[in-house]
């Protein structure tokens, strides 16, 4: 199992730094967009807090009970989008896919759960702006980390 572990970009200094000191980790009290992506099979979640000022992402943070891949991707992604606008953030998802390179099926799910939670935070922001009373917006993941793991094993 661990013999073939590939961390995003390999276990380089950047990844190690994100592991030891995840950036933008924890609650953001003044967030005006809160999104959660949940894997119901494993109960793993990412909650993403975004502070929007119009189209600009003034601040962002995340929290998760997931694995280290999720932590590293959340750390990299949140860092990438802070101070930029929504178009840039959407483009960042594609850039992150490029940056992460070849991932295992499980790692792909980890990346998707981070991106989905961010998109859920945008949805929450838009819904509240439109007058809805919504504390957070929840996306349930279609694919589970658990089944991706099994799929990965079967494919080996």
């Amino acid at each position, binding site marked *: *199992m661990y013999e073939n572990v590939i961390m995003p970009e390999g276990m380089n200094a950047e990844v190690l730094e994100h*592991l030891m000191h995840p950036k933008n980790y*924890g609650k953001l009290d003044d967030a005006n967009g809160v999104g959660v992506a949940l894997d119901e099979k494993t109960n793993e979640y990412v909650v993403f807090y975004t502070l929007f000022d119009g189209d600009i992402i003034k601040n962002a943070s995340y929290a998760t009970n997931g*694995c280290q891949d999720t*932590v590293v991707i959340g750390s990299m992604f949140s860092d990438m989008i802070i101070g930029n606008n929504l178009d840039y953030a959407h483009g960042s998802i594609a850039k992150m896919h490029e940056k992460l390179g070849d991932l295992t099926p499980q790692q792909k799910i980890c990346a998707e759960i981070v991106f989905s939670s961010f998109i859920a935070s945008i949805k929450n922001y838009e819904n509240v702006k439109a007058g809805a009373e919504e504390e957070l917006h929840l996306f349930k993941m279609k694919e589970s980390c658990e089944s991706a793991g099994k799929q990965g094993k079967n494919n080996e």
Partner: protein
Amino acid sequence: MNKIYQAKHDLWLSITFSSFAINDEEIKSRLYDFAQMAFRHMKWLGEDILSAGDKYNYDRDILLYKRETVFEIINALVIDIKAIQNVYPDTVLGERIKTDDAYLLDYLSEVLANKSNNKEITAFNMKREWLDKNLPQDQIDALTIFLFDESYKEYELILIYAYMQTRTKDILQYNVYQDLIDESHFHLKSFANMMAKLGILALPRELHEMTYIVKDLDKFIRDGIDEEMAAKEMCKALSEAIKDEELSKFFDFINYQENYHIELMRKLL
């Protein structure tokens, strides 16, 4: 009241991770004993807070003492212990905690009085070398990921079980939670000391309330049993991947321990 709890939570982590960071076995061991005392303080403060009809959470405001020498760590710890004295409640428990802290401060003064204790701290150097072992890079990578995953998981379990223990009136549940907390303390200590040896000691991530507020105990336990089974597999895989007899035996031992954790959890169903 949550401010007191949060300050104690922070101090418990500070003492615990100071113990992990310091190489000297005697100082490490003494500090770990004090850290366990601080954890009990935290538990009793939590019980008092709930009895008073108040609430607490696991929010934190702590930075790891990433220092280069033992004295720098001890001095930082002394400042934080002194600062918390004014935060403790004016109660019998508060006074008792202060006497424990006073004894810890005495001990830290003794450590600081002996200059030979002021050794270099290697726990944060990120070298990822195990000096007395010759592990190839892929095994070090595997071990690194395992240690980050599992040290967080053990910290998470300690706090979830403690949260539930404080809220149960059932003696069996209370005792099972205590056993599970004790086991997770041991695992956290083992894993974090390994991280320190590798120069990658880091605080586990803060827990979000979605993680520790359990709405469905039965589902939580069943999921927990599944997680223990997964942890067994990870230990087994790591034991096979690490070509070092001592480390392999250790991960086998952790794997076998998960069996009785599962049995303990089944008692909660």
